[in-house]
């Protein structure tokens, strides 16, 4: 069989965390689980988790799925923080982490 220029490995083998200078941090006490941050993430770095152990604005949000940030892939663009309607995401300098 000949050598063929076909690529087969998932790009998720490539971690892009080192690209980041600031990181988004979700304040779950303000997060209404609207998933707008998830919707607008260009790096597919925001996943969905069951939020029972997370803080919440009030009891009604306690059982809802919540966004979480996958810091292996987040490049720190800040779209999530910019688009969050509830100011629940802060961009924090990596040097301060």
């Amino acid at each position, binding site marked *: *069989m*000949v050598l063929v220029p076909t690529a087969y490995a998932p790009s998720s083998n490539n971690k892009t965390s080192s690209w980041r200078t600031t990181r988004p941090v979700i304040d779950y006490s303000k997060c209404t689980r609207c998933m707008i941050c998830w919707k607008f993430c260009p790096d597919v770095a925001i996943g969905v988790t069951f939020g029972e152990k997370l803080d919440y604005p009030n009891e009604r949000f306690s059982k809802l799925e919540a966004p979480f940030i996958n810091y292996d892939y987040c490049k720190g663009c800040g779209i999530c923080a910019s688009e969050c309607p509830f100011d629940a995401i802060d961009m924090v300098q990596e040097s301060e982490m």
Partner: protein
Amino acid sequence: MRAINKNWSIMTGNEAVALATKLAGVKFVSAYPITPQTAIVEKIAEMVANEKMDAKFIEVESEHSAMASVMGSELAGVRSFTASSSHGILYMHEMLNWVAGMRLPILMAVVNRSIGPPWNIWADHSDTMTQRDTGWMQLYGESNQEAMDTIILGYKLAENKDILLPIMVMQDAFTLSHTSEPVEIRDEEKVREFVGEFNLPFKIDINKPMGYGSLMPPDGPFMELKMDMKKSMYSGVNKFIEITKEFNETFDANFPGPVEGFMMDDADYALITLGSISSTAKHVVRNLRNQGKKVGLLRILLYRPFPKDLVINYLRGLKGFGVVDRSSTYGPFGSLYMDVISSIYGKLDIPAANFIAGLGGRDVRVVDFEEMFMRIMEGEDGEIWINAGVK
């Protein structure tokens, strides 16, 4: 096509090619018209329209797109074909490299025609000579029978799992493309069996998603891929010999294989040619033999990969030879000459002349070949233009 008997017909080179694609089970054809190739795709379009050929035919807006679309269809796993000529070949240059690098066994019939300016629609090999380093194999035929047979042999060679490279199948403009000759039509069932099913090992499969041709840095296997292409291509010489043998047995034919030696056994002097002018050269060889001159002809069918060992074997023992280039290229000598000389370098030390002849469809006449033989017998070498100069 007028039938003489069951298997023989009088047909042009273009018709022979078109018919061969049907026999070989081509399923997708995409092309752009250009003289003198046009009749090939017209014939295919007609066969498809009349359900004599089970294939999809599309006419695209450029040769670049013709090659890009057959790239898509081959990747999808369908045996594909296109045809072009001259400026069309030049226009698809980028795509030629791309499909070869993708290892797609596409076949393209080329009706060899000159390159302008000035516009000239007649035969020479400048169009395909300028594409000799694109990763395509190149086969130059001499007759309409070969126009048909090289398509059939070509698919078998190209689709071999150890080769997987595209092939250009050449015939000379008008001399073959528009001239009728008797051609034995190969039996369709036998052809299908001979060529086999097309099964591209890496075809598009949603269950096995891959990137085809992705970015590769210097330390990626870039060089290794190019090395593998060269290795595969040069394994094609022996593979072509094997396939020729099988072809001749299957069809009771006498297809010559990568090279054809004509009266070479005890020759002292020989010419090396490509394409249809070889027929005239053979006529001259016969005449000179009748006059007691020990001359011969070596015709190269398979130009890429260049069958260097076969060529060396034929040239060993000669007192002189000449290489006829029917193309305008701008290296120190003609392309075929340089390939021959670099192949024999350090192995044979024989005076050799490079004849440039027949550009833009100018006839290469009996007297021209006589002159060439005379000059190599006189020990001339260097580049000599034949039947050209201020008139």
